[in-house]
């Protein structure tokens, strides 16, 4: 029984990770490429900066999602990127969707092979 519970919780964890992956790759990578900087900072850079500022997943998710929900030059931790590319547009995603995506970014090492990674 315990094993079953463990498996179940593992399955649901995996499922939510997958939603994050679909949402991230479905929406963000149009501008934020995983590894290279094109019209917006590369995802590895964003992840690195946020991880440095907010080490805990909970904080990382909170601050990243709040910022993306209402981008603001004053509260940005990536001033250099704003100087270079301008402020990220307000995209009007649901809070929950951005949180899901933020959690996925926190968990994903984009330099390693991961589902959806296009070599």
């Amino acid at each position: 029984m315990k094993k079953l519970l463990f498996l179940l919780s593992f399955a649901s964890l995996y499922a939510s990770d997958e939603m994050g992956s679909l949402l991230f790759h479905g929406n963000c990578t149009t501008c934020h490429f995983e590894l290279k900087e094109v019209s917006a900072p590369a995802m590895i850079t964003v992840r690195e900066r946020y991880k440095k500022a907010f080490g805990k997943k909970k904080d990382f998710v909170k601050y990243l999602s709040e910022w993306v929900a209402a981008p603001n030059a004053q509260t940005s931790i990536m001033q250099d990127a704003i100087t270079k590319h301008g402020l990220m547009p307000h995209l009007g995603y649901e809070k929950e969707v951005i949180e899901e995506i933020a959690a996925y970014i926190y968990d994903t090492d984009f330099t390693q092979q991961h589902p959806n990674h296009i070599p």
Partner: protein
Amino acid sequence: MGNLLLFAMLGAIFYYVFKSYSKYEKYSKEAFKDFSISYDSLKRSELGLFVALAAKVAKADGRVDALEAELVSNMLDDISKVFPEPQKTKDIFKQIFNEEKDNNNNIEHLAHALSQATKRSKAMQQQFMQFLIQLAFADGEVSKSEEKVLATIAEAMQFDPQTYHAIFDQFEKMMHNINPKSTLEDAYKVLGVSQNDDMETIKKAYRKLVRQYHPDIIKSQGKSEAYIKEATQKTQEINSAYEMIKKARG
């Protein structure tokens, strides 16, 4: 003891009958048991073409939203299960989905290829079309760009226009009829949760229900249209209940 033996024998017979039937289904483990899984082979397969088209529809209005992702994720699970290595298959399908979503130049080509590959089964084509139309309706209404992508696909597949419009109208009606008078209390009931549960619990319940009731493109083979209709309706109901609760909680 005699009974047990009888049951075992009956079981064996049923298993044999079931197995020999399932061999003739189009998308089954049996049918795909010798399929060699690679990016190229999957991309060329009917299901690969279908995934690519689903990506176009999902992204047509510029974003992939939560229910769309939920439906796509379930669909990928369903179709990957018939292949010998489900997880590997699913990862490749996901990659195809992501590559195809931003590129709108090859819709006609893909739709034509899918129509060629499935020409022996009008029923299958209809199922694919139904899923794509449902996907377009997932966020509540079909945008102009979504409608255009769907129409392009239907035309390139030489899909019967009357059937297409019938499916479309059916969804429109369904969306319209989803419990317009339902209360927040009903919404909690639909998800089987209580007003005191936190959002995390409610989200889990929601996901579980969507997974349970979504129209399964593999299982629905050979089933009546009523099955897909019911599954779709239930999915939309679950979704609108969840939306309602989310809205109420801010």
